[in-house]
């Protein structure tokens, strides 16, 4: 029996399922949009200055992202919405709370403490690093 590597790779390509990009984008747009609209409404009704409202809104959204994760709801929203619920800050809360819940069984130090950032860690490391790099370039250009 023979099966060439190249031939098989082509076969795998042919038979592998394709994600429906259009439907996924539509769902992500809808759910992501709804999340942003909620944040915007909350932001607008706050009686504070713009600077203060922004921080309040962020805290509000992070809290509800964490709460809906704890209530076993956020993963179901994510199954439907994909990037729509991953990209907003509620998704960031979800990516920290979900491993914290998952690894609680390994204890507070090596479980929750060590594993909490297992998903969000790379975002933090490279997000913060890139802000430093971009900030530095900005500083040099505008000096």
């Amino acid at each position, binding site marked *: 029996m023979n099966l060439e590597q190249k031939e*098989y790779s082509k076969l795998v390509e042919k038979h592998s399922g394709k994600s429906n990009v259009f439907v996924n984008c539509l769902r992500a747009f809808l759910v992501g949009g709804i999340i942003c609209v909620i944040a915007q409404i909350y932001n607008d009704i706050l009686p504070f200055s713009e600077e203060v409202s922004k921080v309040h809104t962020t805290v509000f959204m992070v809290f509800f992202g964490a709460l809906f994760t704890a209530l076993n709801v956020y*993963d179901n929203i994510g199954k439907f919405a994909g990037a729509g619920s991953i990209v907003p800050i509620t998704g960031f809360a979800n990516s920290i709370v979900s491993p914290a819940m998952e*690894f609680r*069984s390994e204890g507070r130090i090596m479980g929750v403490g060590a594993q909490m950032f297992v998903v969000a860690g790379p975002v933090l490391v490279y997000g913060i690093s890139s802000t430093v790099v971009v900030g530095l370039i900005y500083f040099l250009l505008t000096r």
Partner: protein
Amino acid sequence: MAQKVGNQTFVLDRKVYWREGVCIVGPKEKEGPLGKYFDQKEDEDFGEDTWEKAEARFVSATYAKLLAKSKINENMVDCIFAGDLLNQCIATGNGLKKTGRPYFGLYGACSTMAESLILASLLIDGGGANNAVCLTSSNFASAEKQFRFPMELGNQRAPDAQWTVTGAGACLLSSDNMGENCPVIVSVTPGKMVDYEVKDVNNMGAAMAPAAAFTIQAHLSDLNFSPDYYDMIVTGDLGITGKKLCREILKKNGLDIDLKDCGEMIFDPETQGTCAGGSGCACSAVVLNGYILRKLRENALNKVLFVATGALMSPISTKQGESIIGIAHAVSIQNM
């Protein structure tokens, strides 16, 4: 003593009886198309506070049920061949630690059921044991935790991804049928490892399909059988994508076989959101010891080639960019 025939097949000399089989599954499996063939349903957490303990409970409960159903004293179990997906087979270890019987922990990923059947039947055939238990388990949540992401993370599943079956399946192989009409293990074909550079952990069916095709072809050619010899050739957990690939490889090599696949049969992807189908050590184990055993007993099937498939990889190997090794072992089970 078993005789080696051809390249990699062993034909058993003594009759190794498949005395009894039991399976306990989770709620999703019970709701699936084969639900009525499974002996018992338990919640995914089995009332435990960790997923790993839950899987161990599935193991111990399945073992206890097997002993009760086959009406044998535990001391009559000469050895246990068992395994699961967790690191160092810890669910099996914790589930069986109180048995006090000789134990071999196996890791063949999702092919472990066939691996255990092969080793147990060869041992019985050689006269080394009279009764051996083969048992495998998996748990959706514990597997997700080890191999993928936390349960509550809001991500989407890839279209070719498979859903790890929650449950455990076990059987008792014996040199004595105790006067009952039992299916017999006639021959076994241990598989070789195959690597076709598949690196996508969301497409394990593609990694395993060539291994399954090679093992099926080897079994048929070693014994000089045509595919029609068997009423059913059933693979372990290639899933929908893997089964298509396996059929195509076989067809290219002149074998047009109407394959069945445990992973494809156990769930309904339309209503259960399971993408390409079931997987996990328990997938083929519960379908074999639930559905297939019943069909053999009812004589709806008389000759079955059971080909459990495994994807050999770890979270570390995939992060390091290693490809997934496929393996498949075949066991020929027949009514005599």
